[in-house]
């Protein structure tokens, strides 16, 4: 099915049913609500600092058109000036003094005139301030932060998948006394927010000497109750016959885990991987607590550095936020295909 076909599906019949209008109206609203902020972010990341603070704000990155006028060192901003006789003229502004601006005609640069500021309209054009991207990449250790973030995300996701799948395997395949109690205990930890355990975990991490190491970010969150729960629920749906067939086939329990259960849980693992990547990539509070040296900053903490006490460099913050969004979006695009494949894959009648 092509994209156009998918996007133009209706309830059927010759005319559009009112539910078609309702459905599309709802979907458009949804797209606007979800995607609007992202579009705003992307467009704003190309605005100069001045146009970000401009009022009224614009959606597109607009900036004042400028022109080089002979006799002036800097390019002059261009305005449309309404002259006393009612005619309009394109002029550059040399300087502004109070309510008066000294303007000059670019074709006659030696005859500046004074114009009331109400009599001139700025000429604006679409301009992308790519320096928002290039400047921080030069000045700010973006690549180092990126490297740290990638390391934390990948290693933590691998460890999370490994540990959680083992726990889920034990809790779903084996029957032992206390199995349900263990599960309830794991689920129960979901109710404890990170802010509550921030200090104790910080103390543990400190006494292990992990402060300012990326492992301090990776290890405490490696075993997630959500992941164990998700994988366990999925593994419980695997037919028991498969496990027993593997036992009859002389497979050890490790082989059953690695060669039967893990491959068959791929869709659930993909979902957890997506979650884990998003959690780790976007994690802020915990890394902020344990990473104090800038060489161990992750991207999120690095971005925070643009937010000074007195001034926020919004243009850099927005641009770097866009860069930060790209990898996690790509991961989602690639991994979400795994979710659908393999679901109809049980092979049992």
């Amino acid at each position, binding site marked *: 099915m092509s994209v156009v076909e998918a996007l133009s599906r209706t309830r059927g019949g010759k005319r559009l049913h009112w539910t078609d209008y309702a459905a599309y109206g709802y979907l458009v609203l949804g797209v606007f609500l979800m995607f609007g902020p992202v579009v705003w972010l992307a467009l704003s990341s190309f605005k100069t600092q001045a146009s970000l603070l401009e009022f009224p704000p614009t959606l597109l990155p607009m900036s004042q058109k400028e022109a080089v006028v002979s006799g002036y060192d800097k390019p002059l901003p261009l305005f449309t000036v309404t002259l006393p006789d009612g005619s309009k003229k394109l002029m550059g502004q040399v300087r502004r003094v109070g309510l008066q601006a000294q303007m000059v005609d670019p074709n006659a640069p030696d005859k500046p005139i004074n114009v009331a500021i109400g009599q001139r309209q700025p000429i604006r054009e679409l301009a992308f301030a790519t320096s928002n991207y290039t400047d921080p990449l030069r000045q700010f250790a973006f690549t180092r932060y990126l490297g740290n973030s990638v390391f934390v995300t990948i290693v933590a996701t691998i460890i999370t998948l490994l540990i959680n799948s083992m726990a889920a395997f034990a809790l779903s395949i084996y029957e032992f006394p206390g199995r349900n109690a263990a599960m309830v205990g794991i689920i129960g930890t979901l109710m404890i927010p990170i802010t509550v355990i921030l200090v104790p975990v910080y103390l543990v991490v400190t006494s292990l000497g992990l402060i300012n190491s990326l492992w301090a970010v990776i290890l405490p969150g490696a075993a997630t109750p959500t992941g164990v729960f998700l994988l366990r629920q999925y593994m419980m749906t695997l*037919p028991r*016959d*498969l496990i*027993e*067939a*593997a*036992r*009859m*086939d*002389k*497979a*050890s329990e490790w*082989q059953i885990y690695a*060669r*039967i259960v893990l*491959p*068959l849980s791929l869709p659930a693992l993909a979902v957890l991987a997506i979650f884990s990547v998003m959690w780790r990539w976007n994690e802020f509070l915990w890394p902020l607590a344990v990473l104090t040296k800038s060489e161990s900053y992750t991207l999120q903490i690095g971005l925070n550095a643009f937010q000074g006490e007195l001034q926020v460099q919004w243009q850099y913050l927005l641009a770097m936020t866009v860069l930060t969004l790209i990898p996690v979006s790509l991961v989602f695009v690639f991994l979400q295909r795994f979710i659908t494949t*393999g679901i*109809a*894959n*049980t*092979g*049992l*009648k």
Partner: protein
Amino acid sequence: MAHLELRDVEKSYGTVKVIHGVDLEVKDGEFVVFVGPSGCGKSTLLRMIAGLEDISGGDVRIDGIVVNTIPASERGLAMVFQSYALYPHMSVYKNMAFGLENMGLPKAEIERRVSNAATLLRLTDYLQRKPKALSGGQRQRVAIGRAIVRNPKICLFDEPLSNLDAELRVAMRKELSALHADLGGTMIYVTHDQVEAMTLASRIVVLRAGQIEQVGAPLDLYNRPDNLFVATFIGSPKMNIVEATVAASSGDNTRLTLPEGRELSLPFGGGDLQTGQKLSLGIRPEHIVVAADGDLEMSVDLAEQLGGETYFYATGKGLPQFTIRENGQANRRRGDTVSIRLRRDSVHLFAEDGKAIRHGATQVPG
């Protein structure tokens, strides 16, 4: 190939006992079928032999060694599951090779064995396919192939044909028979279908409520059932049972009273039959003939024309519904009155507790 022995094997779930002291010996190369109604414990017993269920009491011995505590993976048995339980993420080749890889065989040997099994089961063209791309019969063959490539001591089958349609089931039944003839291994097969049991088994074990009712060759069970349960379970359609009372019994003649005062004289007697003793008389559908001067007058309820033979169901006053088989295409209609004769030499007598007292002479159906 191996010799299996069950000694007083028991299984309970909590306080509920599901297998009550089963004793059984399966000899090398035998094809033994466990048959019984659903819930009789036949699958549980098989899984206990496999090692997939704990044994609550008694011993399971394979080649003389008690295997009670040996895990399934180390017992050296193979099992074919009702659901086939093929590994969906592996190709047919991988499915069959999985067990061999776990045994640590060299690659060349694995390849040789898998391709032999594939040839035997006509799967050579499908080796690279995933199970979901196979038909039911092919999946079944892969499951069997996976079991036999390992040359297991005993091959266990847990209702392997019950997911197939009727036609395929008959075809696979023949293949399994041929396979056993070719390979000659020890096989234990669980089914609730007594036709499968009759056609496949070298010996049948009839189970009911966790106990063995009778063990024997198919025709032994058919001709000389030990009790009423086996008599009615084995044979399709079922044996007809009618209540009777002993009117008189002498050395070579027994007279029975049937419901509504009908009398039946049998050409055998027995000292242990008491006058007035209540009995169940059993007679198979093919041992009843329609005759002018029959023993019982009955009215036809329903006739089933199978082409080569006709079954009709008839009731008489005070009698349960009888199933009667006739050769060829007999023209019976609902409401027709027929007079039937029970072949005296094929009558079975059962005591009130269900135990067989007398069997008619062993008969070839005729």
